[in-house]
């Protein structure tokens, strides 16, 4: 099931972008209103709910005992899972994760893993037998575009909310989170780049680019989506746009 965008709406969005305007009145480089709620779920070790415009995403972090990977016997394990809940959109059906959910989880995972945001080496318990595994579960509750950005922000907010489990095998003073990678997406509409596309803009765009950066502005993950293309100049432009916005989003975690 997918929704067809009407030609009237498509033309309207493109006309606006040509004038440097957007369908919801934002500037080209403006994020939607962001709200971050820390710790709504007590059954999780850490949790966060993010509202990005009308999009709502909830992330829960659970710390569990697990067997380590054979080649890293003393390192914790990171697992990111995403569910595009049927509550969130008429186009999401119950069933096994669709390709968009898998991409979403893997992009969020990449941002956290490649930046070494979590010091997994500190999460060993008994070498070769028992380590802490960090499960990050993303639940998309309401879909109005920007799912990767909202999910990545909620994930890092949830990690920053983690209270160590009451378990004698937990020896650390807190949770070893050293960086806060933030993902920001730009969409290409009619040869212009707009930041944080809403759902209508996503339906019209030629392509999108998500760039995940950490505090010092270095890039730890990127993902291009959509069937269009980007020029090299557009990539540079995208980096400038997203890096600045990542700073804004990071500040919302507090």
């Amino acid at each position, binding site marked *: 099931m997918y929704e067809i965008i009407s*030609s009237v709406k498509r033309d309207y969005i493109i006309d606006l972008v040509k004038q440097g305007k957007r369908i919801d009145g934002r500037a080209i480089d403006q994020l939607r209103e962001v709200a971050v709620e820390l710790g709504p779920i007590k059954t999780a070790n850490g949790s966060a709910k993010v509202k990005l415009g009308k999009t709502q995403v909830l992330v829960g972090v659970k710390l569990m005992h697990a067997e380590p990977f054979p080649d890293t016997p003393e390192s914790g394990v990171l697992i990111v899972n995403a569910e595009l809940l049927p509550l969130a959109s008429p186009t999401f059906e119950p069933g096994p994760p669709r390709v968009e959910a898998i991409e979403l989880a893997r992009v969020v995972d990449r941002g956290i893993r490649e930046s070494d945001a979590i010091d997994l080496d500190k999460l060993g318990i008994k070498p070769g037998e028992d380590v802490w595994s960090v499960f990050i579960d993303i639940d998309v509750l309401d879909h109005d575009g920007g799912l990767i950005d909202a999910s990545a922000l909620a994930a890092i907010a949830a990690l920053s909310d983690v209270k160590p489990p009451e378990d004698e095998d937990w020896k650390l003073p807190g949770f070893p989170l050293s960086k806060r990678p933030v993902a920001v997406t730009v969409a290409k509409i009619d040869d212009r780049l707009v930041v944080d596309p809403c759902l209508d803009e996503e339906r019209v765009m030629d392509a999108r680019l998500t760039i995940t950066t950490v505090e010092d502005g270095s890039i730890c993950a990127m993902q291009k989506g959509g069937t269009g293309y980007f020029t090299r100049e557009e990539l540079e432009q995208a980096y400038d746009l997203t890096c600045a916005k990542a700073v804004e989003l990071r500040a919302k975690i507090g």
Partner: protein
Amino acid sequence: MIHVQNREIVVPGQLIAEGDYQHMDGSFREGDKIYSAVVGLADVKEKRVRVIPLQGRYVPHVGDLVIGVVIDSHQSGWILDINSPYTANLFVSELVHRKVDLNREDISKFLSIGDVVLASVKEVDEYMRVLLETTERGMGRIKGGKLVEISPAKIPRVLGRKGSMLKVIESKTGCTLAVGQNGRIIIWGDDPKMVNLAVEAILMIEREAHISGLTDRVALMLEKEKSGGV
């Protein structure tokens, strides 16, 4: 006897009237009691009881003006999404008002997937199969304008009694509106500020449809914004 105030907000299962009353839309009868079936405004006129729903999907009725989006085509016409549990059929002869030789003409030149069409409901059968026609002036494929979608339940308020609300919006913004019963509205206007103002008015109506005095409040808001923006 009536158990609620007129225009009171009622919920499903709420007792509205008891005795010799006729139950209409949004209500149902059990024995000699009439209850609300939906969340809405209780409306009692003389001996007729109904509930004006504040939410709900659009169910097509013959004669309704609708704004549809083409989602598929077939041999002799197109299937349109009309923001309803039911899709609608538009035969090519209903669109172009002449006989079309399907062997000679390629009908895809008339409408493409994603095109927006202003039409009216010609027929609805008991299986909810819907046929559209474009007999009035201005109907057919729509180009340009801004498309707004609101809850179909609020459309009567956008029109107003005898079109009074619609007149207010059009006169104060200088825009032209096509209002579909199925919750879709197209706004045409030369000044984008005025188009956005018309959108503001529509969204305000959607939010406050259940509060009386709406026409005056909308007129006031439009005046304020117009003079404020000058």
